[in-house]
């Protein structure tokens, strides 16, 4: 129960006796309240420079992830780059190879757009019987920011693509010089070379000072700390698009360039690890997103999928962005199995875990977008469902 009149319990103070302490002075760069503790997942590792930290989605309001809580996935640590020294080379099958400084790029017409970013390995645990216990550890390698940068098309027009140019090898300035082959097509209409995130320069963890942004595609191809685009006729089948981020099927074949992040949603409240203090009024809420454009519908079930009802979506619904759904709910205090199911503008409906596994088996590893079910116990505890 909410306590009304906090602090009024023992001996009410008169107005004159009220204790007040002078607050903190002005500051150059703000910090959150010390009472707010939401944090990315971190774990002990002998190689902490390579790994991922998941965003606490259940503690996020609205659709924007605070930059400091944006999920991380690094392969060779976060480089410390002086933007004044950073350059982007575009060469290969172009008419005019060019080197751009950050100052050069900022002279070009810019755009700001809100887009989600999701690791291709997000929810990887869900392929296995031991699924993630809470939202953060099962769906937390996804975040959403307002990104600012130059449309990729603008920059490619400056260098001029040759007719045989069909791909580009994007390369980062991290220690491993992360490379990915990026197909050049109309799918890149909304791609940008981003230097801004949520109103300030990119965070180092998200690629400061420059990253590739290909909205709707898996995070790994949106190369951070972008230093080079080598335009080619063919993909290069580099390590991180064959050995990693490919989807192994039951017949032993692996799908490559599975770039699209398909429609997905998850209830963030109530969700695994939380506890409902008692029967009564609540707001069920969560996030939905799709690489194919806009979310058109989110349905919620309270009976493990037997019946579904539409959950209102926060307006405006943005393309390739987190979409917030909210549904008032009165809990009767009895056990419930709750889940959300997203539909996008292509008509694609988020599948169940079982439907995904029926097609792809359990060794796929990447691109899991199944429905996540939470069990609510009579005691109000919220737990995940193991397969």
């Amino acid at each position, binding site marked *: 129960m909410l306590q009304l009149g906090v602090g009024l319990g023992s001996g009410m103070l008169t107005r004159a006796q009220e204790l007040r302490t002078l607050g903190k002075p002005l500051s150059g760069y703000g910090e959150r309240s010390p009472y707010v503790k939401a944090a990315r997942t971190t774990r002990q590792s002998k190689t902490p420079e390579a790994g991922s930290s998941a965003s606490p989605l259940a503690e996020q309001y609205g659709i924007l992830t605070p930059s400091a809580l944006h999920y991380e996935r690094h392969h060779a640590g976060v480089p410390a780059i002086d933007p004044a020294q950073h350059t982007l080379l575009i060469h290969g099958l172009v008419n005019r190879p*060019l080197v751009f400084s950050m100052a050069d790029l900022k002279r070009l017409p810019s755009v700001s757009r809100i887009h989600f970013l999701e690791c291709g390995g997000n929810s990887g645990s869900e392929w296995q019987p031991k699924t993630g216990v809470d939202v953060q550890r099962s769906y937390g390698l996804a975040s959403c920011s307002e990104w600012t940068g130059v449309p990729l098309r603008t920059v490619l027009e400056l260098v001029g693509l040759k007719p045989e140019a069909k791909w580009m090898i994007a390369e980062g300035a991290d220690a491993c*010089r992360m490379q990915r082959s990026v197909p050049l097509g109309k799918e890149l209409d909304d791609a940008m070379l981003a230097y801004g995130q949520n109103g300030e320069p990119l965070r180092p963890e998200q690629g400061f000072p420059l990253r590739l942004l290909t909205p709707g595609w898996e995070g790994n191809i949106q190369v951070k700390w972008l230093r080079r685009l080598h335009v080619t006729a063919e993909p290069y089948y580099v390590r991180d698009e064959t050995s990693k981020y490919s989807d192994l099927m039951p017949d032993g074949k*692996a799908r490559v*360039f599975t770039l699209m992040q398909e429609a997905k949603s998850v209830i963030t409240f109530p969700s695994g690890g939380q506890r409902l203090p008692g029967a009564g009024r609540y707001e069920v809420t969560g996030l939905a997103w799709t690489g194919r454009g806009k979310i058109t519908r989110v349905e919620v079930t309270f009976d493990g999928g037997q019946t579904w009802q539409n959950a209102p979506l926060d307006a405006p619904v943005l393309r390739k962005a987190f979409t917030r759904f909210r549904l008032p709910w009165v809990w009767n205090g009895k056990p419930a199995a709750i889940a959300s199911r997203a539909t996008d503008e292509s008509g694609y409906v988020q599948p169940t875990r079982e*439907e995904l596994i029926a097609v792809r088996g359990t060794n796929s590893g990447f691109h899991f977008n199944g429905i996540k079910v939470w069990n609510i116990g009579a005691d109000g505890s919220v737990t995940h469902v193991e397969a």
Partner: protein
Amino acid sequence: MWRLSLLLAGALRMAAQEVGRAPEAAEVRQYGLTIAPDGKGLPAGKGTPAQGRELFSAKCARCHGEKAQGDIGPPLVGGQGTLATKKPLKTVGSFWPYAPTVWDYVHRAMPFDKAGTLAPDEVYSLVAYVLFLNGIVPENATMDAKSLAKVRMPNRDGFIPDPRPDVKRK
């Protein structure tokens, strides 16, 4: 005279509209290599499994294990024939489709904490050794730009395009 100044003004205006600058050839080289799966981009140099064994022990075994069986770092050997089983083991030998890609990755990203320090001959030697451990090249093989491009990896045809959307509703 006015014609000349007009031309100059035009040229200046053009220059002002240009964003970015043309790189020198040496500057492009400094950015480093990009290696195509057919070996295009591989530099001069060569190495053998025997040379690779010594280097591996000194520079790689710490993470990948003395026999490349995996430790902190992933295993680099074994797994052939496991991809369609319940416990697939993805390694250079069982999974990677192209040998030049192995060269590219070792050269670009390894060793983990000293990436970019291996000379081309060292990379050829290490790749030769790992391919030898996987039974892909003989012990007396010499790997260079030409021979590496000719290596046929066991899982060369193991990759297929994205068929999604692939999940049908019940």
